């Protein structure tokens, strides 16, 4: 599981980038909350074997929600354009900021759960070399992995347990005695992403915006905040 703080930071960056005129504290909070949702399956793993990074970390939930958002008109009628925009960006926060970061690093994500219970990790390299041509190890065509997708696999929900601070051994049961680690930042680049998100939100919500648009009062302050 990628640090929850990283999911939140990425959610905030996506919110700033995609919300447009719907950007305010409330909509940012909704998108960040959506990015945190997938990590709740760690709690489910206390009762259910192999739920972490599987139960809410699959492609089916985002696909279903996307279908609903596309088809449904109730949201549009009730909340208007703004509600639809926040809905789509929250979905992006869920899938892109919540689920995807876990896929690209150990311990991986069970993408097709519950259809198959195989964890996948997309980690490798892609480069162009003047001697060797294109080198890539993200997609492994030689399929000795247990799943259908051509990615490296660390195991299935039976063999591969994902430890979290909620569930230190990744298996059902409370394990009250063991040490718990709540990881905030796992590597230098994650610290950079978190700092970027904090700085971006600071710039977007900066209190001095209004005084800068002194020539055009109130109305265009909203224009500037797009």
């Amino acid at each position: 599981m990628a640090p929850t703080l990283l999911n939140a930071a990425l959610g905030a960056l996506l919110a700033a980038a995609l919300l447009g005129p719907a950007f305010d504290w409330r909509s940012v909070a909704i998108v960040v909350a959506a990015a945190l949702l997938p990590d709740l399956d760690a709690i489910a793993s206390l009762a259910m074997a192999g739920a972490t990074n599987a139960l809410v970390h699959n492609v089916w939930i985002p696909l279903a929600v996307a279908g609903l958002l596309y088809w449904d008109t109730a949201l549009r009628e009730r909340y208007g354009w703004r509600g639809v925009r926040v809905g789509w960006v929250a979905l992006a926060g869920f899938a892109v900021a919540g689920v995807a970061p876990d896929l690209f690093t150990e311990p991986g994500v069970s993408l097709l759960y519950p259809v198959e219970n195989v964890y996948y990790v997309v980690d490798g390299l892609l480069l162009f070399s003047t001697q060797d041509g294109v080198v890539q190890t993200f997609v492994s065509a030689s399929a000795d992995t247990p799943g259908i997708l051509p990615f490296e696999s660390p195991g299935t929900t039976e063999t591969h347990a994902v430890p979290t601070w909620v569930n230190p051994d990744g298996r059902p049961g409370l394990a009250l005695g063991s040490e718990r680690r709540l990881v905030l930042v796992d590597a230098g680049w994650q610290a950079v992403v978190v700092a970027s998100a904090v700085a971006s939100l600071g710039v977007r919500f900066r209190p001095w915006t209004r005084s800068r648009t002194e020539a055009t009062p109130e109305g265009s302050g909203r224009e500037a905040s797009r």
Partner: protein
Amino acid sequence: MVSTIVHAGFALVLAAGLLRGDYDRRALAVVLAVVLLPEADSFLGPIMSGAHRTVGHNFTFPAAAALLVYYDTRIRGQSLLRERVTERGVRIAWVALFVHVFAHVSLDWAHLDGVNVLWPLHDSFFRLEGDLFWSSADGLVQTFVDIDLDPETGSRQVDAGSTGTTQSVHVNNPVEPDDPETLAEAETIDRRFPVAGRGWRLYLVGLGVFTVIARRLQSDPPAE
């Protein structure tokens, strides 16, 4: 270097978040050019030891640039920059500066031997590496900055990830893919142009592409 494509991916996300009404193809092109430019210090490598990750990768120049832009646009009565590129240009300049610091210099700071943080004021490479977690046994632990207290002398040693100076550090890049001395002896030179060296870098590239595509597909807000 973290591949320029990775910088560009993260830069697009940050720029989309900060440009507001100025978001368009031209503004993005300016931001991408600013991301690309610092890599030119690779070409100084053959004439200056340790030039890559030094000349274009430090926090001194961005700080100086920020002070200059601030002075010119806020303190001076007549702003040269605003006259040249209008108010919109000034806003894009600030975004480009932000992107340069966070998407370029900072990401490289966390990669290989890091960047020469305070060059030319102070010649020393630093690398940002470590983690930060709360443990039920040890409390809050961070390993980004090591602080050692010598038990005998009581002197304190702070190590923020220093890796060397321009004389000792060489960061491989396509222009000089290995140490200059090794290169001089090598028969064939393998130049490697990375796209993404790890999963998370591929993720950042994808995040940038996703953001730009999503911005294109979005519907315009209804006219009020």
